[in-house]
């Protein structure tokens, strides 16, 4: 019998419950909790209010137009939307496999004494602020990419549109790479949780059939944890899409989109960060930047909802399925 339920029913019986000390405390907590609801409502309404000018002016061209001309009041944000999606895609392509590898190692392969400390070290990555990632990106990663990795990519794969251009180290590839590193703690931690939730009876079933450890992991563990891992990746995608400072500092800040990884670019978050103080208060320019923030907000919402549904589905699968 849940104490809280019993208490509630007793309380509802009294019409003046709110005036009791208990009632007042609950009301106080509820009031502070409602600040959260209030904040979300305010964020949405302020974003809408701030972007209305730009929405009226650009209409649908805002999301399908590629011309961003401040002086002529033409604001097409497609290059930035594309930039965000492109760099996030790279982050996922590189970061998710590494995260899954880390999760598999920690969950299935690491000896006991390694597990906790190593897991903790990986989590430390999450504690490093974005701006320091960016700073490191400018000074260390850029040099590494410009002098070793990108020329190699350019020479060998330069015929592909993805690798044309001059290797400078300040480009979408650098941004995607840093984002990949930044999502590793999130995606690997959730994947680990999800793998830990796989019942041991599944592992034993595979081993008893004469499977090697690798076969057991691919068949029994990953198969079971599939949707949870996918959910973790979606949440990682959410982080990558919203990342600002690190991306701003290494992406090269060019307001156009190209398919080449070696070209500089711009994301939704970075255009806002770079230009915020350039826009006059109340101007169409500022409204356009706010509208980009609105679009970013919307994308984040969708991504997070999908991610949480998928992780929830996997937990329900475990509880509902066998036995």
């Amino acid at each position, binding site marked *: 019998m849940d104490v*809280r339920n019993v208490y509630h029913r007793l309380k509802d019986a009294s019409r003046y419950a709110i005036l009791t000390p208990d009632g007042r405390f609950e009301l106080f907590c509820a009031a502070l*909790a409602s600040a959260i609801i209030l904040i979300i409502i305010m*964020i949405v309404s302020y974003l809408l209010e701030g972007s209305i000018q730009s929405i009226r002016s650009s209409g649908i061209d805002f999301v399908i137009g590629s011309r961003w001309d401040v002086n002529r009041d033409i604001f097409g944000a497609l290059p930035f939307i594309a930039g965000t999606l492109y760099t996030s895609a790279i982050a996922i392509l590189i970061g998710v496999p590494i995260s899954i590898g880390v999760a598999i190692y920690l969950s299935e392969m690491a000896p006991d004494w390694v597990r906790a400390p190593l897991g903790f070290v990986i989590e430390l990555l999450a504690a490093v602020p974005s701006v320091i990632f960016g700073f490191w990106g400018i000074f260390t990663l850029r040099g590494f990419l410009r002098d070793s990795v990108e020329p190699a990519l350019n020479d060998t794969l330069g015929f592909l549109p993805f690798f044309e251009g001059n290797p400078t180290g300040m480009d979408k590839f650098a941004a995607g790479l840093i984002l990949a590193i930044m999502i590793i703690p999130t995606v690997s931690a959730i994947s680990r949780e999800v793998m830990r939730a796989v019942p041991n009876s599944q592992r034993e079933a595979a081993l008893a059939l004469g499977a*090697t450890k690798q076969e057991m992991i691919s068949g029994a563990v990953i198969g079971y944890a599939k949707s949870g891992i996918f959910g973790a990746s979606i949440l990682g995608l959410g982080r990558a899409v919203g990342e600002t400072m690190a991306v701003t500092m290494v992406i090269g800040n060019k307001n156009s989109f190209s398919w080449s990884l070696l070209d500089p670019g711009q994301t939704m978050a970075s255009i806002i960060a770079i230009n915020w103080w350039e826009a006059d208060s109340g101007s169409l320019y500022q409204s356009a930047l706010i509208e980009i923030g609105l679009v970013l907000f919307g994308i984040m919402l969708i991504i997070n909802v999908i991610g949480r549904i998928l992780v929830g589905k996997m937990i329900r699968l475990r509880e509902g399925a066998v036995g």
Partner: protein
Amino acid sequence: MIYGNLKVRKLKDRLAYAIALLCVFAAAVPLISILLDVLVKGLPQFSVEFFTSELPSPGTGEPGGIGPAMIGSMYVIMIGSAIGIPIGIFSGIYVSEYGNNWFGRSVRFLTEVLSGLPSIVVGIFAFLLLVLGLGGPTAYAGGFALSIIMVPVVSRSTEESLKLVPNTIREASLALGVPRWKTTLNVVLSHGRAGIITGVILSIARIAGESAPLLLTVGWSPFVQTSISEPISTMPVLIYLYGTSPYENWINVAWGTSAFLVIFILSLSIGVRLLTRGKFAYSRL
């Protein structure tokens, strides 16, 4: 007779192990590189002057310090905490102890939404609310932005810690005639205090490094500030502005600031985990 090629399968097994280990290195190498870089380039900057002097002018050989930026960071963190921690803790208490209804569920859901907000969007909102039309960038606007980021972290850890408190503890207190609200505040909260304190400290560590929202709300000021209604310098914004500048002395200051910030944040993160090692290490606190 079913006979697979055992040699090949064992090879795949070894390969899988090697690849997994490689992934671990791929994750660890950037971390080590960042830490090394920051410490090697930043620690040499440390000196008494570094922590106390005013911000240096660009380009000159003039030594300077980050005193104002540290004070500025302290301001915004304190303002953010003053707003964010109470809201976070009490909303966490509500959802855990009283939240078994549509309101509690909505709060929980929206807290999750809040935690997924890009920090720059939070910055835009704080700007629109507190900067636009109110005279310009101020420290309290930055503090407010940071509080929005803190609330979900504190709320979630509070809620989870309280949910772990066994019901028998609540029942024991209620059975002794202690009113519900006192039970929650004194007994339940204190039982879950390890997790709550962890959440609070980790939220501080998180906002200490946030740059984007401050960039949009607090702006920057090269001077020492005493009022919170003015723009101020803060450490994360310093790293951004100085780090992307062409001036060597500024870049050095940025490394020093990064080193300090990283040490600060990592000490908080590591320290709080050590202190609350084990689920119910509340006896140590």
